[in-house]
């Protein structure tokens, strides 16, 4: 399997969302299967995102203290995937931004999202299922209007894959 073996510019990453107003998200197993994920990482599903925010795992741990003991202990727990607040150039007719707007309105739609990064040859994908919890439009007059939406990944529903 060929992971990109170069330091990647931030510009190398793209964000894709599964199509359809009523999507069936990938199973947890398929979130780590390149063929399943790459089928969704196509240009028609691209979100016009300004920059990909930090993604991955949140920090999570349990902190134990024992009375009479000098040191406590920190036990890492299974962390949730990081929520992402994303800024995109706002075209009111953009089909994928309309999906984000609809998801934010609905609040319970699970959808597969993919962050795909490439060095031009090899590709690494981070796929996760999540819900959209915010959709705002910022019409700053000195630049393009931008819409901001937040994706909250579902617990444990993520996977990494790369091309062969």
């Amino acid at each position, binding site marked *: 399997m060929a992971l990109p073996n170069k330091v990647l510019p*931030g*510009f*190398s*990453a*793209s*964000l894709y969302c599964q199509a359809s107003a009523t999507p069936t998200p990938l199973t947890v197993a398929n979130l780590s299967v390149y063929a399943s994920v790459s089928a969704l990482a196509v*240009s028609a599903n*691209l979100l*016009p*995102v*300004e*920059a*990909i925010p930090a993604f991955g795992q949140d920090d999570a741990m349990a902190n134990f203290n024992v009375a009479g003991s000098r040191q406590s202990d920190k036990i890492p727990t299974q962390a949730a995937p990081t929520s992402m607040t994303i800024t995109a*150039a706002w*075209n009111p007719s*953009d089909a994928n931004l309309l999906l984000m707007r609809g998801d934010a309105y609905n609040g319970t739609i699970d959808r597969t999202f993919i962050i795909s990064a*490439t060095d*031009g040859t090899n590709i690494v994908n981070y796929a996760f299922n999540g819900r959209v919890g915010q959709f705002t439009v910022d019409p700053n*007059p*000195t*630049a*393009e209007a931008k819409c901001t939406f937040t994706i909250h990944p579902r617990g444990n529903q993520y996977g990494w894959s790369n091309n062969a």
Partner: protein
Amino acid sequence: MATQQDVRLYAQAIQAQLSSIVTPVPVYANFNRNFATQPKFITWQLRDVHQPVYTGNVQSIKGIDTPVFQISVFTTEMADGFNIANTILQALHGYSGTFGNVTYNFKVSKADVVWLYHGYDNEIGLHNIFMDCTIYIPT
């Protein structure tokens, strides 16, 4: 998706828009070789064409363009220069709508004019007034 805008159309529309504002004063791009015989004329120059690029490997993901064109008003009489400059300010500053003429045009959300400065060139004997106009183009 936002495709790269056509700078040739920018030039054609700027020429048309300025010509319609100051007619019958002649309008030239960059340079007027007949400057010695014309008491009033305008030149313009386009710069700062740039649509910010967004992340990812798809070329057409970009922001809007906010190009700037400089308007240079040359006149032998200072009052003529201020009159022409004022006409341009009144017509362009804050303008929103179709920019150009019926053949060469595009929509602008806003035109923003900065009146830069007034000077005099002793070698060519002309007053000059310089203005910058930024246009915000839906893309």
